[in-house]
């Protein structure tokens, strides 16, 4: 997964063509840390079908807030730079995330 931050978010996500998945996480967020192995497995399994990124939201607060993410964990799909779908803490469920990727890819 590509680590994105305020320096490269524009280029890697907003200017990117095609589908981009961004995992908004932070090291202090226990549920995020719990999900990390599953997210990495998900990215590996679907390599090539989308660009997989992760963003430390605590270290990039303004960027996260600008992306309308103020709760962790959050998974956001972007297509051609446009936000197309958000999973929040309550809705994150890996089979559902996979289904969404299959639908968007």
């Amino acid at each position: 997964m590509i680590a994105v931050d305020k320096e490269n978010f524009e280029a890697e996500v907003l200017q990117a063509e095609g589908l981009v998945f961004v995992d908004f996480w932070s090291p202090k967020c226990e549920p995020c840390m719990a999900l990390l192995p599953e997210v990495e497995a998900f990215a590996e399994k679907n390599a090539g079908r989308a660009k997989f990124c992760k963003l430390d939201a605590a270290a990039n607060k303004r960027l996260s807030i600008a992306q309308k993410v103020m709760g962790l964990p959050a998974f956001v799909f972007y297509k051609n730079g446009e936000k197309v779908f958000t999973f929040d803490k309550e809705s994150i469920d890996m089979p559902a995330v996979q289904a969404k990727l299959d639908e968007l890819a």
Partner: protein
Amino acid sequence: MADIYDLLVVGGGPGGLAAGIYGSRSRLKTAVIEKARPGGQAATTEELANYPGFFDGSTGPGLMEKFRAHAEFFGTEILRGNIVEMDLSGAVKKLVAKDGTEYLAHAVVLAPGAEPRSLNIPGERRLRGKGVSYCATCDADFFEDLDVVVVGNGDAAIEEAEYLTKFAENVTIIVIHEEGVLDCNKASAERAFKNPKLHFVWNSVLEEIVGDELVELVRVRNIRTNEITELETNGVFFFVGTVPRTDFLKGHVALNEQGYIITNEMMETDVPGVYAVGDARVKYLRQVVTAAADGAVAAVAAEKYLAEMEAFREQVLEADKPVLLLFWAPQVEESISAIGALEAAVADNENVQIAKMDTYRNRKIAGRYQVKACPTLLLFRNGEEVGRLEGVFTTEQVSELLK
């Protein structure tokens, strides 16, 4: 076939991990199945003030990491899985995870815990993750130099509000009670009143959360005057109690009307060999220390249950000869003399075996066979009861029973 665990714990919060510690330390093959990371709600609670012995600088995640390491040190396996289906009725319990993995165990400890209650007020669901939060440690960072509202006034609410003041500029607590009255402990209340970043709105409830893409303001209603005031804010944190995570247990163990698991003092549910601990069970005080205590009790009770079942299986159910099983007790005089009568009756009979069980130490089995008198003698053939003598008996009666 999958390995059969002696003790399988569902849930890795403090109750489940304590059960793991006690279980594995008594050499039971023990595993804790956790769907996320071990630690439960305590792992998302930064401020942890009253777990005995941990008061200076301890945090919820820190203490839970110690619990996990302690359980693993004694041999508890920590497994990743989300249990969704189960069959608890037999002697071997089966648990099935969402991904289809099956786990088998002779005894099960249910430690599913609880999750934050939502009030379902307008805007709450829609703005989740967009300013509405139930986890201060997860989301506090976003609110650096911003304003937040906290709903609730119990221990969790006041302590988490205090934590939020390290990040947010202003933390406003909406309290349903009259001025000066908080449900939390006195020490936390006193500290909160002295914190210049904490503000209180008394006699009030949250009516609505407003915002387009992120939380912008809340409407607060004064319950005395019904007057509604608008308060601009960037976030709303809810700490209004919890609900047990027991939906997946419906129909498997007895729950009360609110969904909490009903247990006795030994943490036994209504299903033999199945125990419940922690916040998900009916209890007076839901704290890390009481969850851990529950875990210890359940593991020890499960260990006794397993020993009882194993002895019974080996000596009675799987015996290759007929078995005369005597329920006796050292404190009941007649039952001691019954041993003599029994031994005399089978002295020259190599075709029958004798087994003895202390009625009061083996209540499960005594209960299963409805043993009411002491002594009681049961005759088993091929694992089935085929006859019994209740109360004091003679050598002749035993000989008669064997015919």
